[in-house]
């Protein structure tokens, strides 16, 4: 293997520092069983600072922590670095001008096409972008979750996706294989929406886990929003259903319809009408401003947002939900 090892040309948005993270965790996380329920406003105010590195989960218009994202915009917390695996959740943050740089894998609308918001921001030079694959970003979280500074992968070898990342090529000490070393991202803040948790933050998820386990374990500060609170007895009866244990959770926000206009498996279907309206509005800067004004700035909180959505539509979405 005399060949020169390559390295991505982008700077790290977050420096791996396992010992620093260990010390942070020891000082700030608590093992105590305390009721962690709070409001979006309080959780965001207390746990998110300008310039923080943020990641959201799940993806797209599915199980996304939309009420938390809207609150960040309401509070105008800017200069954020984000792990950009997203559809509406991260797009809204970019649209609000709060994002300075992105570890990007995908920002778009799948069948609904590309993101006009990302286009304006990227083509206008208003965000700095490093390129990664989807799995790579999840493995970077996994690395942080494992307490190691990097994980090896073969993904993205030979591509410009690698070239415009901050990853580095390494050689396997056993096989001589060429590999990509993915730097760990112990993100400042993780935002995850799940179906259920007890008041301490023991979380259950129905259906795919996406990268919730990895993000929850990689986050220095973790805000979880939930559709409903269950009794601690339910947790103790089925401890294997606890995918995110309480000690990882710093704030718990009860947010029914928290993924709206996205869907929530077992709870409600996606709000096609609201999504179409959104997609129409974000085609222009002005429409985007109007949308944010109407759905975020003009209303005080998630309860008011749900009033705006209206009870009838909520009921229709519940009726149309995916059931077992």
């Amino acid at each position: 293997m005399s060949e020169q090892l390559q390295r991505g040309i982008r700077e790290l948005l977050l420096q791996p520092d396992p010992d620093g993270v260990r010390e942070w965790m020891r000082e700030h996380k608590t093992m105590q069983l305390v009721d962690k329920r709070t409001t979006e406003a309080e959780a965001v105010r207390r746990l998110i600072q300008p310039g923080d590195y943020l990641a959201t989960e799940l993806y797209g218009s599915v199980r996304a922590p939309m009420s938390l994202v809207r609150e960040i915009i309401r509070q105008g917390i800017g200069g954020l670095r984000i792990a950009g695996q997203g559809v509406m959740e991260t797009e809204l943050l970019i649209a609000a001008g709060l994002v300075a740089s992105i570890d990007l894998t995908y920002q778009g609308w799948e069948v609904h096409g590309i993101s006009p918001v990302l286009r304006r921001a990227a083509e206008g030079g208003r965000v700095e972008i490093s390129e990664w694959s989807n799995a790579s970003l999840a493995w970077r979280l996994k690395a942080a979750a494992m307490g190691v500074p990097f994980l090896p992968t073969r993904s993205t070898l030979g591509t410009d996706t690698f070239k415009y990342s901050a990853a580095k090529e390494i050689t396997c000490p056993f096989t001589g294989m060429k590999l990509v070393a993915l730097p760990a991202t112990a993100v400042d803040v993780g935002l995850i929406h799940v179906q259920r948790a007890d008041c301490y933050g023991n979380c259950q998820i129905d259906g795919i886990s996406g990268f919730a386990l990895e993000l929850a374990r990689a986050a220095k500060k973790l805000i979880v929003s939930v559709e409903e609170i269950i009794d601690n007895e339910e947790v103790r009866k089925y401890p294997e259903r606890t995918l995110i244990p309480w000690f990882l959770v710093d704030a718990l926000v009860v947010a029914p319809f928290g993924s709206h206009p996205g869907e929530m498996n077992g709870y409600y279907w996606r709000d096609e009408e609201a999504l179409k309206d959104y997609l129409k509005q974000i085609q222009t800067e002005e429409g985007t401003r109007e949308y944010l004004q109407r759905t975020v700035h003009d209303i005080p909180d998630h309860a008011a947002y749900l009033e705006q959505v209206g009870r009838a539509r909520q009921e229709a979405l519940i009726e149309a939900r995916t059931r077992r």
Partner: protein
Amino acid sequence: MTQPTYNKTELLICLAARQMQDDTSAFIGTGVPMLAAALAKRMHAPNLVTFFEFGGVAPDLAVLPHGVGGSRTYHRGLAALGILDVMETAARGLIEYGFLGGAQIDPYGNLNSTVLGDQARPKVRFPGSGGASDIGTYCWKTIAIMPHDPRKFIPKVDFVTTAGYLDGPGARERAGLPRGTGPYRVVTNLALLGYDETTRRMKLLAVNPGVTVEQVVASTGFELLQASPVGENAPPTEQELRLLREEIDPTRLYI
């Protein structure tokens, strides 16, 4: 018997479906690949297994998903895993086909879904890799679905989001990509294309109904190898169209 009419999407779905063998597995994105998998399962490949990026495995697809993380990607499925479990299943060589798309493709099947122009200040910014670069690394055979256009089939893509055969024979292996993997087919509105085993360059395999070889060549911005003879793809059959319209996508979400 008159040939039934069909639209472009229906044709793409049928052509894509026909590329997949039974008893294999496919890494499925939203849109055409999803419908192609559903159609293949009902036609010639009942044991085809579908994997969705964020963890869904082998759902019933009774209602079509709107995205690769949606609840319909695992509804009545055999497993609901996470993104890494699915990606690592591909990494271990267990997923045969992977579907890709992009804004540009070159003769070696390299795909661009990131930018036109300079990455730092692009002329057009696309969504980025998503799972494409992972799929293009690990799936044994990738199938690209593309509109056929000389501005999209170009000699050199602006940005290699997903590795095809890179710059030719042996390049994937030299880059460290898994042995035996690479681009397999390109399905377009005009034709079905493959890759030459020696040169790893794109090759016209068959034209779509009513399309001439000349049209395909004119719509391709680089020199295209040609199979001898170039075949002709059968149009969607009545059965395929009936399945698509009545069973797979009766609400016409995609078709």
